[in-house]
């Protein structure tokens, strides 16, 4: 355990050094994370105004707080593993990673956490700017805000595990850009990135709740905005833990099976 902590500290230093080298690039990539919620917030604001200020129980201020919270939660939970993994396998970089006496997932965890720490100073002002421009309505519920902390942490873990497991598909298909695109569509709707789940058709809502997607992004947002009862919050955290266990099992199996057929392109 101490050994692993040491490795994390060292990896953190390496990652930090390389990110500081490419800091401009990291900030430019963050534009995606601001533009997308901004687009949907604009769309829903127009709809709200044309309907006289209320869409299915959401006012303009509600949409503003929803999408600003969504932007922050998405930023805290996103990973870029699915885009990177294909590159690793096709270019044989994975071979070098396998030579290290430690599972490659650890360096990915550190990379992701480090990039979040580095970019938070940009996301928070963006959120404040959006708050000034769109006037969100926010009713803080103390217990829900406290519960938000573990919920968003579990959401990050869950999204990380799910995306890492999905990207292992590359062992079998070599190209996974289509898988990525499909995954993007699903999270856009089932994780509440395009619209609050409450506004989507019933079937979509049920699918989002049964599958892991709601628990990866939407759930912490709903919690933060005080839209859930304590029972719902507990059930949500339970669902996160169950899906984490399932995802972790799949990840381990797929990793072992995948490594067996990995042919190390470029070797």
């Amino acid at each position, binding site marked *: 355990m101490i050994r692993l902590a040491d490795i994390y500290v060292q990896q953190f230093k390496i990652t930090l050094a390389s990110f500081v080298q490419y800091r*401009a690039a990291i900030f430019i990539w963050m534009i995606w994370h601001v533009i997308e919620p901004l687009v949907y917030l*604009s769309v829903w604001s127009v709809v709200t105004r044309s309907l006289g200020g209320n869409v299915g129980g959401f006012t303009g201020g509600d949409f503003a707080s929803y999408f600003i919270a969504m932007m922050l939660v998405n930023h805290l939970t996103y990973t870029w593993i699915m885009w990177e993994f294909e590159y690793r396998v096709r270019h044989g970089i994975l071979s070098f990673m396998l030579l290290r006496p430690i599972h490659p997932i650890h360096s990915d965890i550190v990379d992701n956490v480090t990039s979040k720490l580095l970019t938070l100073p940009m996301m928070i002002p963006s959120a404040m700017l959006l708050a000034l421009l769109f006037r969100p309505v926010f009713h803080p519920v103390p217990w829900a805000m406290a519960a938000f902390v573990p919920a968003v942490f579990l959401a990050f873990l869950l999204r990380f595990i799910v995306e890492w497991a999905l990207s292992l598909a590359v062992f079998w298909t070599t190209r996974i850009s289509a898988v990525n695109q499909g995954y993007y569509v699903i999270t856009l709707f089932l994780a509440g990135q*395009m619209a609050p789940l409450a506004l989507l058709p019933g079937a979509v809502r049920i699918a989002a709740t049964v599958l892991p997607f709601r628990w990866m992004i939407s759930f912490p947002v709903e919690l933060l905005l005080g839209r859930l009862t304590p029972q719902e919050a507990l059930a949500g955290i339970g669902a996160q833990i169950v899906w984490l266990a399932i995802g972790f099992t799949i990840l381990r199996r797929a990793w072992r099976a995948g490594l067996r057929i990995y042919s190390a392109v470029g070797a």
Partner: protein
Amino acid sequence: MNIPRLISVFIRVGVMSELAYRANFLVQLLESVLDLATAFAGIAVIFSYTKDLSGWRPDEVIALVGVFFMVGGAIRFMIQPSLQEFIRSVRRGTLDFTLTKPADSQLLISIQRVEIWKLTDIVLGVIVFSVALTRMGTRLDLLQVAGFAAALVTGGSIVYCFWVLLASLSFWFVRVENILVIFQSMYEAGRWPISIYPRWLRFALTFIVPVAVATTVPAQALTGRLTWQALISAAAVAALLFAVTRVVWRIGTRRYSGASA
């Protein structure tokens, strides 16, 4: 030198090299269809609550999605891969080979690479766009079609100049690949009519990162919202921008010293 002939040669080379990887076509088709499905699902959700989006009816927004796909496909077909290659060549010093060729260097770097499967986006865009127009049932007169074509060419050339200007930064700053991401992420906003955005964002999408001229403006031409004055001023901007791009390109190439020299 004959410009269309040069372009067709480069496209032919691109086709030949890509035909070796035919499975890529299916992957690309799947991706494009998924992307289109996303756009439609989004429109369906929005219009389940309202009948018009700041004055745009569903079919008009679908027509806009068609234009969005056509223009985006055209960018990804030639402009983006060529200019990415150009930025790489400045870093590696291989731009020397282009500069010594007996043709206009800006033309050569703009067409040097094609990703032919991105044509699926263009084709799908045209289909979506035609279906939307038929559903609207508007009779198009020749003038409107001409206006649309003019708006598309104007918008396209403004976007092209913008990309070349961004890529030319590599003459001064070398590592600028990521700067292209600014356009790609802002372009996503072009899926929806520009009029839905707050004023500052509308300004940014028109004058700072010119997304609107290539998406909303052509769609407006067909739905009868575009005034001739707006089109003429857009054309003037396009001409001016093109001249600026030429000057920047000249200064940049003069500054370029070659990585190995």
